[in-house]
C-alpha cells in the first residue's frame, strides 16, 4: 500500500471506550450569559419571572447548552488528547453534532454525562489524511432521567 493507515492498533482499541462521568451544573446566570452570547432574547432563557410562570417553572437551557462542568471527566478536548497520544494526527476540528432531546433541561439541574467513542474511520480529504471520530454522550439529570443524547464528530488531521 502506498499510504499507511492512520488507525493504529492502539487507536483501534479505543473504539467502545467509555469515559468517566462529567457532572454539569446548570445555573441561571450561565443560561443568561449563553443566551446573550448567541443574541437570543427568548424570555425563557433571560427573564426569571417569566420563566417561573411558564410550564417549565424556571429558566431553561437553549438547545445544546448543558451547564458548566463541576467535576471534569473526559470532555471533547481530553478525548482528542487521548486519541493523539494513541497516534492520531494532532490538529482538531469540530465536525458537527446530532442532538436528541428527551426532557427539558434548566436552572437547578445537575447533569451527569458519559461519553463513549463509537467509531474511528479515516478518509483522504482536502485536509490530507483525516481521522473521523464519533463520540456518543448521554446526559442524565438528578432524577436519573435521560435528558439528552449527543453524537459528536471530531476531525483530526
Amino acid at each position, binding site marked *: 500500500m502506498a499510504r499507511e493507515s492512520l488507525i493504529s492498533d492502539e487507536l483501534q482499541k479505543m473504539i467502545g471506550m467509555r469515559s468517566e462521568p462529567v457532572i454539569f451544573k446548570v445555573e441561571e446566570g*450561565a443560561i443568561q*450569559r*449563553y443566551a*446573550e*452570547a*448567541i*443574541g*437570543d432574547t*427568548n*424570555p*425563557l432563557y433571560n427573564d426569571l419571572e417569566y420563566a417561573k410562570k*411558564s*410550564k417549565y417553572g424556571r429558566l431553561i437551557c*437553549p*438547545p*445544546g*447548552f448543558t451547564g*458548566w*462542568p463541576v467535576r471534569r471527566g473526559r470532555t471533547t*478536548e481530553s478525548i482528542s488528547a487521548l486519541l493523539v497520544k494513541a497516534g492520531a494526527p494532532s*490538529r*482538531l*476540528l*469540530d*465536525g*458537527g*453534532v*446530532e*442532538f*436528541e*432531546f428527551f426532557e427539558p433541561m434548566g436552572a437547578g439541574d445537575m447533569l451527569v454525562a458519559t461519553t463513549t467513542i463509537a467509531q474511528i474511520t479515516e478518509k483522504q480529504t482536502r*485536509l490530507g489524511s483525516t481521522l473521523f471520530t464519533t463520540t456518543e454522550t448521554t446526559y442524565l439529570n438528578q432524577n436519573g432521567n435521560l435528558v439528552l443524547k449527543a453524537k459528536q*464528530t471530531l476531525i483530526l488531521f
Partner: protein
Amino acid sequence: MAKQLYYEDIEIGTEIPPLAKVATTRMLVQWAGASGDFNPLHYDEEFAKSMGVGAPIVHGALKRAWLGQLMTDWIGEQGVLKRLSCQYRGMDYPRKMRTMVEPQDGETWWCKGKVVKKYEERGEYLVECQIWVENGKGEVTTPGTALVSLPSKAAHKS
C-alpha cells in the same frame, strides 16, 4: 413574541422565517466565555494560521446555537425541539470591530430552513425540517436537520 405555531399551519415546503446573525470578533469572545470553548482557533491569528484555516473562524457550536434559535423562535413555547443536527462544512470568518460595540461593515449570515416532512406518530405531531446557515455570499456553510413536535388545533378541542 410571535403567535403560537400549530401543526395545521405548515405544510411540506413551508419556509421557516429566516434569522439574521452577524458574527464578530467580540461575539466570538463572548461565546467562548459563555460556552467554555477556549480553543485558540477562534481568537488567535497565529494558531489559526498553523491550523491551515487562515484566520480565526466562527465556532461551529455557535452556528449550531443560531440554528437552535431559528427553530425555537419558530415553534413557540408550545412546540418542542426533539432533534437538532448540523455539520460544520465551511469556515466562517467574523467581522472585526469598528467601535467597542459596532462591527465593521461586512457579511451577514442567514439561518434558514424548510419543512420536508410532517406526520403523526404516537399522538405527537412531528415536523422534519432541513436547516442551514448561509454566509454573506449565499453559500451554505452549516447544513443540518431538525425534528420538532407542534401542538395541533385538532387535538385541542374544548
